């Protein structure tokens, strides 16, 4: 029964993993909101609704944007959301933090499980589907059904992965604590 660095890593990851799960759930909700639109034809034709809808899409996309993005001048929504932006980068950085910690703790199995996702995150970050370098999710493109469904699938897969890893970390933490 010893409190090793590995045990500490697992405890910290446990907490952060909960945060990641929150991010994943938030993604799912955001994309679901994008997908469902009011079916009322009257609302559809309403320019006011059009504006709201557009803002909504942009808001969600900007929430998901990368840090590099500069707050847009003159955009009310942009200013409002300025603080909250960058949900993507925290997620990526938290996950990268895991990997570094496990590397330091020499937990090779756990690291091995996380490396694929780490690489995916790198790829996603540096090779985003949008033609603009600032947005990971591009408002004009995100509503294309295949892009949207891809994003949704991605979010669900991540949720599943984080949930599983949450329990795995829990198990590992207890195991490390007990075994040592």
């Amino acid at each position: 029964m010893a409190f090793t660095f590995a045990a500490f890593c697992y405890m910290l990851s446990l907490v952060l993993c909960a945060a990641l799960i929150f991010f994943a759930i938030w993604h799912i909700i955001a994309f679901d909101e994008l997908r469902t639109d009011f079916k009322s034809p009257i609302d559809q034709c309403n320019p006011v609704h059009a504006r709201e809808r557009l803002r909504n899409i942009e808001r969600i996309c900007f929430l998901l944007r990368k840090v590099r993005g500069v707050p847009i001048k003159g955009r009310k929504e942009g200013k409002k959301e300025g603080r909250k932006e960058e949900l993507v980068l925290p997620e990526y950085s938290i996950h990268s933090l895991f990997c570094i910690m496990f590397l330091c703790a020499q937990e090779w199995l756990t690291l091995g499980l996380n490396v694929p996702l780490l690489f995916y995150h790198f790829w996603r970050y540096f090779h985003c589907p949008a033609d603009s370098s600032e947005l990971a999710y591009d408002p004009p493109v995100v509503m294309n059904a295949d892009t949207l469904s891809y994003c949704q699938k991605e979010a669900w897969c991540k949720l599943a992965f984080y949930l599983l890893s949450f329990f795995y970390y829990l198990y590992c933490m207890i195991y490390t604590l007990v075994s040592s």
Partner: protein
Amino acid sequence: MSAPAGSPHPAASARIPPKFAGATASGAAAPSGPGPAPHHQNGPAHSQMHVPSGYGLHHPNYIVPSGHFPQGPGKMTSLPLESQHNDYYSGLYTVPTQNVVTPCTANQSGAQQMYGRGPPAPHVVGSTPGSFQGAASSASHLYTSASQPYSSFVNHYNSPAMYSVNSSVASQGFPSTCGHYAMSTISNAVYPSVSYPSLPAGDPYGQMFTSQNAPTVRPVKDNSFPGQNTVISYPSPLPPPLSQQQRQQQQQQQQQQQQQQQQSLSGYNTLSWSAPGLPSTPDSLIRNHTGSLAPTNNNPTNTVADSLSCAVMQNVQPRKSSPVVSTVLSGPSSTRMPSAAKHPTEPVVPVTQPSELLQQKGVDSSSTTSSASPMPNSYDALEGGSYPDVHSSSASSPAPDPAPEADPAPAPAPAPAPAAPQPSKMAKPFGYGYPILQPGYQNAAAPLNSGVHPSSQGYSGFQQYPQYPGVNQLSSGLGGLSLQSSPQPESLRPINLTQERNVLPVTPVWPPVPNLNLELKKLNCSPDSFRCTLTNIPQTQAILNKAKLPLGLLLHPFRDLTQLPVITSNTIVRCRSCRTYINPFVSFIDQRRWKCNLCYRVNDVPEEFMYNPLTRSYGEPHKRPEVQNSTVEFIASSDYMLRPPQPAVYLFVLDVSHNAVEAGYLTILCQSLLENLDKLPGDSRTRIGFMTFDSTIHFYNLQEGLSQPQMLIVSDIDDVFLPTPDSLLVNLYESKELIKDLLNALPNMFTNTRETHSALGPALQAAFKLMSPTGGRVSVFQTQLPSLGAGLLQSREDPNQRSSTKVVQHLGPATDFYKKLALDCSGQQTAVDLFLLSSQYSDLASLACMSKYSAGCIYYYPSFHHTHNPSQAEKLQKDLKRYLTRKIGFEAVMRIRCTKGLSMHTFHGNFFVRSTDLLSLANINPDAGFAVQLSIEESLTDTSLVCFQTALLYTSSKGERRIRVHTLCLPVVSSLADVYAGVDVQAAICLLANMAVDRSVSSSLSDARDALVNAVVDSLSAYGSTVSNLQHSALIAPGSLKLFPLYVLALLKQKAFRTGTSTRLDDRVYAMCQIKSQPLVHLMKMIHPNLYRIDRLTDEGAIHVNDRVVPQPPLQKLSAEKLTREGAFLMDCGSVFYIWIGKGCDNNFIEDVLGYPNFASIPQKMTHLPELDTLSSERTRSFITWLKDGRPLSAVLHVVKDESPAKTEFFQHLIEDRTEAAFSYYEFLLHVQQQICK
């Protein structure tokens, strides 16, 4: 009538098919119609008379179909001896009249339209309401026995198929089982055209509706009473030429004429109508017809009526051109059919009454109106009037021709007529005989086959492509030429590409016709508006994956139309769950319920829908225009708007930096604006504003009351504000003088400027602020890279990389400033149109974003200079004229729906995707095309048909909320072979091009090129594996795909995708923008230009348009081997024409056409053909003018001498030849073959 009972009477059904044209017709019919069996020969005459008057009233320019149509219909109605007959006639007549009306040239086109569209309407009448599947099966039965069909008509909607069946049957030779219908096969054989009439009958109804709506209709009705008068009024230029031979000739001519579109319309209408016809001629015609018909038809009156109508039509047409006559004839013949059908079932009387009712109501309640009639403006006219669907019209035209021939045997004629129109479409069915299809389908096909009217087959093929001169020949029995007409499914015939040297047909390539039954074919949406890459939809995604072909739709939703039923109704009937608009492909379970064809939900028919204002009948929801036409426009009620419809607002943002002043575009723009100020679409609320910018932003206060325009300069470009927000956008009419002053002063205001900077970004921000409260259109003119403020750009192009074969960079935007701005604009219903007139690199890739995402359009004029480059200046001038005066829709949304099981994913075009099936379009213009990719999510095994519907909701320039709905219906197949048989190569290529553009931007150009080559390799190898008995060494393609490798090669050599040839980055990006936003017809010319030899033009196969004879030379393949030194060749590249003059070209040609004595004296730069008074000059000019018509971008003409430096421009379009950097066609085939064998 059927109306009273509410029960579906056969007669009623026959009448029901109202179309746009029908409205007018209906109006005419109504007058004559009321009395049962009133022999209103006079009546028709009156109607005719009216028509002329109507024409006179209308401006010649007005294409307004309604006006013309009504007249036509009126004539028709008056003609019918009996009331029933009258109705039919009116319907039929209306159709022909429509044709006539639209363009005199239109005769052909009109006829085509009639058939294509008109016929569908009739069909609808019969069976539209019924479920397709059910109808299909019943239809098959019907086909087998003519008598049955008729009965069915009377009884129920189911019979819709009947009409078509009858027609087809008739062609086969119905022994007058039905007394009325007595059709003689012989007659059919003799006059294949006869079959058409049946279709027209349906059309007439449709037309009837429109006519009602149209104001013109009323007069017609009134006048219609005295039949004699009408006769007189029509000066029958072609008096008694009704003889069959003459008719046939006329038909041919008509077909040719059909090709000619709008132009002819105006002229024809006025002339033909105004001219007093010879009364005697009609009579003679009538007699002839009656004589022949009488034996067969029970009702002599009917035949007579037909003949009369024919005569009338002829008269009308003759003035403009003889071909017109034929169309007229067809109309009558069709009428005959319906009448005959009615007679057997019920007394004639009922029919006539409804027609009258309809007409009267039409005027009053006017459920339907032709848009054209109400609208005075050229825009309106365009909208209503000229159907760009020349193709469709042409298709219809063939049908008319047959009709005239049919006259001899009236009863048979009707049947044949339907067959004829169908045949063109049917051609495929012949060969195909899809086993998979429902029995109904097979039957339908079978009858056609049995009928074996060569002409009919030809027609079927032609229907869609009326434009082509060859149509007549083809129709006359050449099925062989067209892909589809051969008895064996031509589209499936394996072709060894490496051995087939001449893949390219001599006539233009027509879209394949979906393998549907006749009625559905007639009802189906025009391929010009709506095309699918696979006209046979595979049942499952697995089959689609096996076929390796792209599945998607190509849309041209806001096309200028000559006929468009406009429906005003309190309740717009839509499915309660999926919100689909009611359309011709829904099924009526009973009188009170209909089943949605997209989600299969059963809906109630609202009470209002039970009443048909066109026919003034009750209880026939299946005869409503909504159910008779696959393209309709609704006037939306206030439910569809939360704020009042916005006015038309135009803002011009002009670059006035030194560079811009030097280029001199301001003069041209201001001149164009001054000329077209009154033609800007809009109502009395129209507002307009101007801004200019260099390093500062200048606003112009044009508030009414000022003595002269006031210029306000804002130099704070970091935080732009509006100096006087209220007076910058002013009412066009209240401040017209000030606006004119400004436009006159503008070109000279900045002549001495030394400011070289351009603050485009801040100017756009200001424009956005200015437009935010209302929305509208911003037109930006830019001449250089923006160099100040937000959105400034740096030059990214490395000239040394222009001809690189490796990596082409910078195809994407450098900043997302313009994209964000565009999204903001889109949210405020503002579209930004970009005119880039630049001599150097201007980073179009970044600038174009402002238009791409705000649904604007992009114009690019490389190396523009008003004096140094006069051809560009002229092009700008012409483009501006079209741009300023074309129709426009504001605050639009477009929703695309498809049958459950299919789903849309990627969209292509200029818009913002607001929801998975909803496109947000701040502006919509008639030149915008869209593409959608589809996937099959669920197996379609439980359905035999799939439907697609686009609904475009927009605010017209007159402040009306309107919804334009297009519905396309396609069959589902389960075998791979059938999928291949139904490939629409052109649509597939256009979709692939769109996908390749996306790929080049998101990935790289070389990826996109590889993907294009792989598309060919995959699809051909997939096909090869389905054909087991072929030697593997050969490159085998199905007939439907034989042009696929050629087109892909053309794409690879297109500016957008080529490598190795020096291509400026902006040129490349512009080509990509065009691929994304051009409609299919224009895009195909960009991809694969048409080459004609023009030094030996003859009138053989020529078509008539607007009193002009347009020769139709055969297409040449794009290879230098076709160029001879002794010839002169014309290449049509969409926005550019090249005339290549060979060294040894005949001096006579050079002198007659170019105006120079010999080859040596032709100047290097020549962009105009002189107007010389020689035959060959006239032919050449009329041919070029005809080609130029209806283009969104005006074409520049270049005369290229052999051995002049400019000839490389010309030769790079010869895509079958080898270049330093690219394969020749044969090499490409070998390359593909090699890839397949790997």
